[in-house]
């Protein structure tokens, strides 16, 4: 339990310094021997990024040279403007951001409402409904994707064009609430003591007021976790956009980048420049909110234990 709470606070501090040492040592490194492991590992982990950056400022001749040129002779930033003029990367970014933010907001609202009701209210059909929702949790997306296509097409034609095929709305609506989110919030609300809510009820507050005023202020950590996980999933989603969107101006970054790669698969410097631009927004968000992302992933891992 203590592990769960430590991780829930986002503390991934080292538990201790190096383990017990033997009493005598003939010689000592001036630094911890673990650096000898960690430096090469870090280089290996970061090398793909480094090579990506280097290639993105090389000329085509330099990139298509063997042996590879490790240090480019001139820094060619024009690859970036070339990439921008061959594919609307800014548009992809805006689409990705809109899809991710709207998906996160919808999830926060809808999963909170449903999770709270499942945790607190007794109503007809609660158990059955919850069971149905849980049953969808384990099913792979691939089982659902063919009907998703038909449902989305139908919605776009008969209900609202903005959620139909070839609109970014189609990338949002199916993920607006998830079984995982409902379950996750319900589990959290069940751990809260009910006394505060009861006393607010006695004072005449409506049930919605109680949720918004009393419960939500206590729910910031799970909401942040749900937001971070939903954001990552939405931002990196590829297969559903690939199926639902074909027009360039509605593409999100992964799909736009994949299409760009398909059209320019041998123009490595420009391709890498586009790749760098696609990476930057998520890297920035990740670094700013690193605590939340790490904590969220750690929390799912520990929840499974």
């Amino acid at each position: 339990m203590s592990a769960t709470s430590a991780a829930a606070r986002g503390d991934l501090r080292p538990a201790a310094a190096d383990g017990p040492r033997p009493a005598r040592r003939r010689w000592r490194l001036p630094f911890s021997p673990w650096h000898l492991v960690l430096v090469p590992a870090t280089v290996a982990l970061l090398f793909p990024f480094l090579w990506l950056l280097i290639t993105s400022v090389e000329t085509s001749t330099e990139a298509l040279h063997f042996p590879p040129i490790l240090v480019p002779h001139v820094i060619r930033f024009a690859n970036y403007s070339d990439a921008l003029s061959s594919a609307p990367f800014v548009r992809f970014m805006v689409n990705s951001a809109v899809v991710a933010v709207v998906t996160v907001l919808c999830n926060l609202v809808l999963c909170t409402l449903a999770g709270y009701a499942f945790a607190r209210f007794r109503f007809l059909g609660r158990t059955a409904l919850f069971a149905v929702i849980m049953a969808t949790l384990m099913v792979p997306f691939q089982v659902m994707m063919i009907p998703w296509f038909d449902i989305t097409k139908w919605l776009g034609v008969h209900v609202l064009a903005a959620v139909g095929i070839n609109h970014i709305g189609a990338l949002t609506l199916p993920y607006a609430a998830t079984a995982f989110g409902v379950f996750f919030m319900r589990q959290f609300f069940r751990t809260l003591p009910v006394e505060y809510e009861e006393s607010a009820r006695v004072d005449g507050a409506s049930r919605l007021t109680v949720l918004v005023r009393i419960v939500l202020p206590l729910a910031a950590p799970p909401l942040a976790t749900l937001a971070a996980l939903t954001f990552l999933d939405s931002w990196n989603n590829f297969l559903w956009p690939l199926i639902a969107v074909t027009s360039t101006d509605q593409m999100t970054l992964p799909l736009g980048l994949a299409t760009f790669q398909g059209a320019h698969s041998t123009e490595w410097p420009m391709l890498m420049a586009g790749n760098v631009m696609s990476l930057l927004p998520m890297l920035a968000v990740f670094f700013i909110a690193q605590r939340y992302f790490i904590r969220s992933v750690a929390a799912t891992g520990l929840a499974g234990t």
Partner: protein
Amino acid sequence: MQLRRALDSEQFNGWAFVTPGTLVILLFGAVPIVWSGVLSFQKSSLLGSDSPFVGLANYRRMAHDPVVAQAIQHTLVYTALFVPGTMIVGLFLAVAMNRKIRFISLYRTAAYTTMAISTISEAIVFIWLFDPSYGIVNYAFSKVGLPQQQFLNSPSEALYVIVVMTIWGWTGFAVVVYLAALQGVPQSLLEAAAIDGAGPWRTFRRVTLPLLSPASLFLAVWLTINALQLFDEVYLSTQGGPLNATTVLVYYLYEQAFQQFNFGYASAIAYFLFLVTIVITVLQFWVGRRYTYYRS
């Protein structure tokens, strides 16, 4: 008065709170699951508007489709390499990073950063690293006297390159999960083991590793579910080739559904994937429970 009481009831509020989210989950969860189950017993394609029921024909076709057999084999080989590979790399790095030494936050950030990379970005970088003609990996091979490889262009190597790139992509995730679990290992137990004369390796094997087993079980299950659904990297790097060498189940299913428009057949494959996922997950929990040590 009565209306106000009704509006304040658990019945009304329960349904009012649950309805919006539930509608989405039913429409895009429950309905599609049943729907594709029905589809899998139909012969349905874009051309014909009627889709006659054909019983188990789609499933029988699967049993005789040589590409399905290959896809199953590739998916299982991939999973069998990717899951333990990611776990070992993640565990090793997490243990190395679970200490207060200089630059530790730098090392950790380097590992975490792989989490922020989309599968598409990752695949494009690795295609370039492993390019047979101009790639830096072949250059490194030539430097140490190894023969030049065809990598993604080689039917016997392509799948392994995809294993390498996906392990890299999941390293951050595995490190985070293992680091969080390592923080939960009580220092007192490690000290007790040391006092009893256990060396670092024995302490790790006999104390730390058992205490990490819940995290290991979680990772094994989670990574397996994801491995069975491998698609993005294959789509981007090899399109299932060369010579079907990287055709995995989901890639074949995608081809059948959205390139051949055999919706019925694709649904049968999807249900088969679902079945395989359930069987493997249940097996993992069943085996895992025997080796998993839960405190409390």
